[in-house]
């Protein structure tokens, strides 16, 4: 099949979990990578090596282990900066996950400062956001009296831009949207929206949690009008560990935002009467950061860089196209979201008439096929399509066409198990 990663079998060997068998000796068919990705040996080994040989706290420690640990941690920041094509490495802030990065932005935009949002201002999001890009903005709106607005969705699962002129207006202070939907798979026109938002002076935040794993990103190469001001992604979806996420922000914006959490490492000086704060990135990294996790993430994005994000993207598109084709052979199955693989990411949510997603996932699991069932933390998008939950398959660089075949076959089996059709 053209478009697959040329060394797919070699790549699969990098991921120890793919050799696991499940109950009944079933091989694992892991199609839940949009939920969390599996980890290559190099990421695990890098973390183990750090813990066994170089573990120390960073920055504060002046001994050899401390110097090694600090060097490894800051090199991880360089690697993440390179992965994003960040204009400056100090613009990369380590958080615990994408959710914290989004909350950091939403919270500090509500605090006293140049960029403070208040009554009369508008916050603009979309109906296809992950809860982590909805709830923080609802909280911001509630705390500040600003109004939360959102782009609706078209029937085929894209942003409804028909009222963009009304939605993006001079009251709009921040626009936050996902680059790739974790439910519908839709790839959004972030450059266009950023351009419009910037023309009214709004800050643009992009949730790249689903984009970073599969799309090449080069922030420095984007025209500045189209470049987001803030961008979030999460380590565990880019073959990195849990416990680590990234907020990238343009220096000027990060400098204008007040600190988020207070504590060790984010200070310049502390007196009981008051404190002053460090510059970026440390200003936003209170306390001991996720050191071994950042180092693991560095190894992860380096691994993806070696495979090549273009190649990963092509692989995802190829698998997605093959999956969309296969799903069409299952009677009563409806895909939610765009149907052409070229304009979507590798997560495909669907309904199967007569069988609830939980029950589908359960039968699939009995055959070793791991998918996600539920609302995928995107309740509003589900509500928009009048469904309460759905089943989602999501592939990644280690997914084979054979695994898609196994999914399709298991779906046929599900129908017969539940005696539908």
């Amino acid at each position, binding site marked *: 099949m053209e478009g697959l990663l040329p060394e797919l079998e070699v790549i699969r060997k990098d991921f120890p979990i793919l050799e696991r068998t499940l109950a009944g000796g079933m091989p694992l068919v892991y199609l839940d990578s949009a939920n969390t990705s599996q980890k290559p040996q190099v990421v695990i080994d890098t973390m183990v090596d750090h813990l066994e040989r170089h573990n120390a706290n960073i920055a504060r420690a002046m001994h050899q282990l401390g110097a090694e640990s600090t060097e490894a941690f800051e090199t991880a920041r360089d690697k993440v900066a390179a992965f994003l094509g960040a204009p400056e490495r100090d613009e990369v802030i380590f958080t615990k996950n994408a959710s914290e990065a989004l909350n950091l932005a939403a919270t500090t935009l509500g605090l006293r400062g140049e960029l403070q949002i208040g009554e009369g201002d508008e916050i603009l999001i979309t109906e296809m956001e992950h809860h982590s890009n909805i709830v923080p903005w609802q909280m911001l709106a509630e705390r500040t009296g600003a109004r939360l607005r959102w782009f609706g969705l078209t029937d085929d699962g894209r942003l409804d831009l028909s009222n963009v002129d009304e939605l993006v207006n001079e009251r709009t202070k921040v626009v936050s949207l996902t680059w790739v939907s974790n439910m519908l798979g839709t790839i959004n026109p972030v450059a266009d929206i950023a351009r419009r938002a910037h023309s009214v002076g709004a800050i643009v935040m992009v949730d790249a949690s689903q984009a970073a794993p599969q799309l090449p990103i080069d922030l420095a190469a984007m025209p500045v009008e189209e470049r987001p001001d803030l961008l979030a992604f999460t380590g565990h979806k880019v073959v990195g560990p849990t416990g680590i996420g990234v907020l990238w922000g343009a220096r000027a914006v990060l400098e204008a935002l007040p600190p988020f959490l207070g504590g060790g490492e984010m200070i310049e000086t502390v007196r009981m009467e008051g404190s002053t704060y460090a510059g970026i990135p440390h200003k936003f990294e209170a306390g001991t950061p996720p050191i071994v996790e950042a180092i693991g993430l560095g190894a992860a994005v380096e691994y993806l860089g070696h495979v090549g994000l273009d190649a990963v993207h092509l692989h995802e598109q190829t698998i997605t196209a093959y999956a969309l084709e296969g799903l069409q052979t299952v009677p009563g199955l409806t895909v939610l979201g765009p149907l052409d693989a070229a304009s979507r990411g590798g997560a495909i949510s669907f309904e199967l008439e007569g069988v609830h997603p939980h*029950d589908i996932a359960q039968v699939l699991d009995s055959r070793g096929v791991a998918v996600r069932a539920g609302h995928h933390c995107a309740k509003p998008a589900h509500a928009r399509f009048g469904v*309460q*939950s759905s089943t989602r398959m999501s592939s990644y660089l280690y997914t084979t066409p054979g695994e898609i075949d196994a999914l399709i076959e298991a779906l046929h089996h599900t129908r017969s198990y539940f005696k539908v059709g």
Partner: protein
Amino acid sequence: MTAQDLDALYQEIILDHYKNPHGKGLREPHEAEVHHVNPTCGDEVTLRVHLAEGRVEDVSYDSLGCSISQASASVLHDLLVGKSLDDAMAIHQDFLTLMQGKGLVEPDEDVLEDAIAFAGVAKFPARVKCALLSWMAWKDATAQAIAGGENQ
């Protein structure tokens, strides 16, 4: 899990209740109504209780969810309606014990009747919540109904 486990989970009784749920629909009169959600998957139930003279006169419900959660609401209706409040509470407790028993609790068919089919569910932690959704809603609604009665 294996194909056998799957069959243990989806007993015929469960699938029957799922396809033909007993007592579904919201009815009057009722003293309390609650809405419960399983945050993990979004399954929902709206449930009403009607109590009179220490007895469960009716349990009516509207629900959206998987076979396990639907069947368990249906079984709840069969088991609790018509019972004295004390008996209903005891049955509720037995069902809870069964579901939280990780598959190690032997259910008493005389008490739990069709609900013994849920013994297989107890082995699947992710599905225990589904099975308990309407039972938790019932307990909540009943507590509210009793409190409401006392306040009058």
